[in-house]
């Protein structure tokens, strides 16, 4: 029986090691970045007849050669900064994919359309008047069909996710089964390390081969260094990239220059604003890099008397949005993460014997995560991306204030109660000195723990903003068509355009909104 599809090679793909000299190329459109935004844009543009060149700084990976379900291999190879990306003060660990396919290589396959409340806020507060479900709906329909997005069967809920499902049910908290973009998933639990069976319908198996079959050329291991402007600083004329050695991830010294009529930046939140900053693009109101949102994540870990095996099974199959609307406060939603040894060891607080004892209980451990919907309060500007060391390194800052602290405390209380209701013997927070919760009487101690950078474990797997879309150039980088306010032939097509966070996992929002925007780009005259 054939269980799974074979690797689907991307025609016209060239890796860094195959580029033996400086190259000067030309195209109708040059796309920088091969994550969901860049991939679907390239597919749409190529289908419309455009000659497309796509640059990706990460490598090109396949199931057979690269995805062995080993954290030691996956994090350095498939994540930004070799798995070490974080805010400058290391207070927020940033998990962000890197490679041909971008975040879809390593995400946990959760699919949500953009919530109506989010679109409504963008229309009202950011002037994105036609950001509607009616406009994006047909694109989401197509994407969901292409990626086989479907609701998981109840039998696919592993014991880790069942804690959220059953605990919330006992407390009367609403949950939902999630949609995933997989085909014949064997539920290895290894989504975050690259799907070892090609079950995940990521970009490297879908829209990128689609684009390549229509003539798009993909260059892996090519890091866009800067966009080159014309003398009047009104148009982008070229992208300059450095070719990386896949073995060392360091520049080979060879350069690649792509001249084109139009350009799409799709490097993802954090990298896209960084490219715009490095390029010195017009930014009269200083908006590039601002309004960076992270869905900051806090977690509680629960110990059970039975095996949970949080490392196997569909990583995410249950969520709760029961606490997403909290008037005047930051809302949050609840999900469950997989726990493999390295990821767990980084999350668990402390060191020495206490840390070791926690690790010994990994197979009986569950974690519930709460993701804060940042950017919705009027004065929540999120974080910033800027450059340091002459542009060689990024600076990522994300100040956590009292509104975040309040939401995090409440989220931890909710998740702890859910875990206890599901039968946990004990729940712990990820404070430097964890709150140990054996019953309701202990929950209040969460309020007493000090709050500050590196005093509580905070993470992010969803990066948004930095090139915010909006009608007003004084407050945004791109307009409602995701076209740069000051450069007529430049579009930004990724999660960096979101003017707030989403309140849901981002891949489907990026795909649908970019697909609709690519349609307009194709129709545009210039």
């Amino acid at each position, binding site marked *: *029986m054939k269980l*799974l*599809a074979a690797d689907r090679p991307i025609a016209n793909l060239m890796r860094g090691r195959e580029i033996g000299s400086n190259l000067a190329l030309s195209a109708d459109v040059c796309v920088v970045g091969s994550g969901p935004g860049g991939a679907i844009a390239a597919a749409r543009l190529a289908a419309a007849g455009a000659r497309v060149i796509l640059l990706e700084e990460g490598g090109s990976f396949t199931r057979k050669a690269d995805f062995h379900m080993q*954290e030691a291999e996956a994090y350095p190879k498939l994540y930004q900064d070799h798995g070490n990306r974080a805010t400058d003060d290391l207070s927020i660990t940033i998990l962000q994919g890197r490679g041909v396919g971008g975040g879809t290589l390593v995400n946990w396959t959760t699919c949500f359309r953009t919530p109506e409340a989010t679109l409504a806020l963008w229309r009202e507060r950011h002037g994105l008047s036609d950001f509607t479900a009616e406009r994006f709906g047909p694109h989401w329909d197509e994407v969901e069909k292409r990626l086989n997005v479907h609701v998981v069967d109840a039998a696919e809920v592993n014991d880790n996710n069942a804690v959220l499902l059953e605990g919330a049910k006992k407390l009367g908290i609403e949950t939902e089964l999630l949609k995933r973009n997989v085909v014949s998933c064997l539920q290895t639990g290894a989504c975050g390390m690259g799907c070892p*069976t090609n079950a995940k319908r990521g970009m490297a198996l879908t829209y990128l081969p689609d684009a390549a079959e229509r003539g798009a050329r993909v260059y892996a291991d090519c890091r866009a260094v800067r966009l080159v402007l014309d003398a009047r600083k009104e148009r982008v004329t070229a992208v300059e990239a450095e070719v990386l050695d896949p073995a060392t991830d360091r520049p080979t010294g060879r350069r690649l220059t792509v001249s084109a009529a139009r350009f799409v930046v799709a490097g993802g939140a954090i990298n896209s604003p960084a490219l715009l900053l490095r390029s010195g693009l017009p930014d009269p109101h200083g908006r590039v890099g601002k309004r960076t949102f992270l869905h900051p994540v806090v977690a509680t870990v629960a110990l059970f008397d039975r095996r949970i095996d949080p490392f196997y099974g569909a990583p995410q199959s249950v969520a709760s949005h029961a606490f997403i609307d909290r008037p005047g406060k930051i809302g949050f939603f609840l999900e469950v993460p997989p726990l493999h040894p390295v990821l767990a060891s980084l999350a668990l607080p402390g*060191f020495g*014997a206490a840390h*070791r004892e926690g690790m010994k209980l990994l197979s009986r451990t569950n974690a519930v995560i709460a993701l804060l919907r940042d950017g919705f309060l009027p004065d929540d500007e999120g974080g910033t991306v800027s450059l340091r060391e002459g542009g060689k390194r990024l600076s990522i800052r994300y100040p956590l204030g009292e509104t975040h602290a309040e939401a995090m405390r409440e989220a931890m209380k909710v998740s702890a109660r859910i875990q206890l209701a599901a039968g946990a013997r004990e729940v712990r927070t990820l404070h*430097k000195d964890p709150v140990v919760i054996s019953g309701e009487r202990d929950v209040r101690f969460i309020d007493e723990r000090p709050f500050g950078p590196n005093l509580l474990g905070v993470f992010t797997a969803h990066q948004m903003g930095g090139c915010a879309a909006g009608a007003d150039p004084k407050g945004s980088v791109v307009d409602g068509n995701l076209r740069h306010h000051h450069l007529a032939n430049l579009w930004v097509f990724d999660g960096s355009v979101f003017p707030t966070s989403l309140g849901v996992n981002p891949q489907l929002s990026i795909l649908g909104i970019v697909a609709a925007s690519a349609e307009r780009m194709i129709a545009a005259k210039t």
Partner: protein
Amino acid sequence: MLALGGTAFLAFRRTLRAAKPRAALSVLSPDEYAIFAAVAARVVAVDGDSPATDAVDVAGRADAAMAQWPDSVQVEFRRLLLLFENALTGAVTRTGYETFTASRERRQDERLAAWAGSRVAVFRSGYQAMKRLACACYYAAPESWPATGYPGPPELPFGEIE
């Protein structure tokens, strides 16, 4: 100034190279290797159920990982190790007057705890950097998995996959 002058000699105390590299190092110096090996031993603090950090060569794995980091990040981390090791740092944090590598285990744990909970945010960041690298390098090693109850990646029916 008098107080500083009285303890300045601490800054020149030498690293105890208890751990020695198994192979040529790419980034770390032998002193830095020994410092990180000592840090990792206290961060992970194995017991009889788990292989020692030296057996897994956590410091060697860290050196290999660092080889892919940008040069400036390598420099920052090496400076961090030397600062953490310095006996003067021990005096400032009231965790002894020896280098970290020469300190007893209890003193080493006190210094780690002092940094982890310091009111100085930079110390807390430094602690996180060392802890994360030590944990990542140790728990990435399959030898460490049995003690955690992680059986390893599942077997796949590769014969049935096209």
